[in-house]
């Protein structure tokens, strides 16, 4: 069997035809996918355009502002005290502390009371006019 003969015979064979109904199905699928892709692209491109219009005049300023905000958020987050001990302390002081506090309040009241009494006893000093002061000295 000559190779050329076989090649010629094989190359003359006619191949199966693609089913006709596939054309509509495949093209419909391709075009509908394209349409959804275009819709998504147009929304994204619109958003991009709007943002570009807004941010383009001073991009460094916007970037700086964003960085400052990020820094503020980070600091705020890191300084937040969420430990349970602090909460417990704030919630219920112990009886000893309560006694101590009451003692301090009492002492404060006594001190305030005594100073008020001293104030009541001693007449308040009002400076006299200079001429009157001279007269007093003379007498």
């Amino acid at each position: 069997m000559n190779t050329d003969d076989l090649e010629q015979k094989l190359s003359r064979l006619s191949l199966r035809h693609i089913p006709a109904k596939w054309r509509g199905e495949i093209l419909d699928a391709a075009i509908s996918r394209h349409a959804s892709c275009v819709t998504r692209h147009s929304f994204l491109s619109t958003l991009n355009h709007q943002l570009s219009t807004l941010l383009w005049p001073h991009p460094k300023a916007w970037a700086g502002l964003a960085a400052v905000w990020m820094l503020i958020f980070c600091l705020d987050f890191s300084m937040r005290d969420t430990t349970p001990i602090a909460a417990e302390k704030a919630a219920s002081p112990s009886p000893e502390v309560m006694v101590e506090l009451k003692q301090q309040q009492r002492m404060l009241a006594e001190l305030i009371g005594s100073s008020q009494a001293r104030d009541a006893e001693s007449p308040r000093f009002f400076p006299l006019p200079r001429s009157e002061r001279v007269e007093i000295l003379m007498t």
Partner: protein
Amino acid sequence: MRMPAGLDIERVYDEHAQPLFAFLLNFTRDEADTRDLLQDIFVKLAREAKLLADVRDERAFLIRLAHNAAIDLIRRRGARERTKENFAVETISIFARTNDPDEKVFHEELAFALGDLPEEQRAVVHLKLWEELTFEEIAVALDISPNTAASRYRYGLDKLRDRLRPIYEEMK
């Protein structure tokens, strides 16, 4: 049905779908898989209209797409699917039906023989015999060297000749 980006998908289908169908059917040996792959290719073309914009040889480019898609599919197939592929060789033929009994037997034997070829040889044999591409064009389409394409063709054709010799001699 013109695409907005300038790709006339109908024209591309009408010019290239038939050879892509035959190539994919020879590769996958399964009509449903062939349809899925063909649809994937056209969906991809519709989604990325720029793909064909700068292409010099549309046919070679599309064959490369089809080849890559078919290779991916075959890699995805497991052992069970390979069994199905071997079974499908008996029923799926890439050739048009004929009423001549001798031709019919020849077609069947050829379908078996093609199914037994390694995929890379089958692809080159198909493109050379039924797409009438040169080895340079096959090399571009399959991303191999022209020498590799030529040697794969020779090996493939030798195997076909060995397999088909008895029938072919009878028919002469």
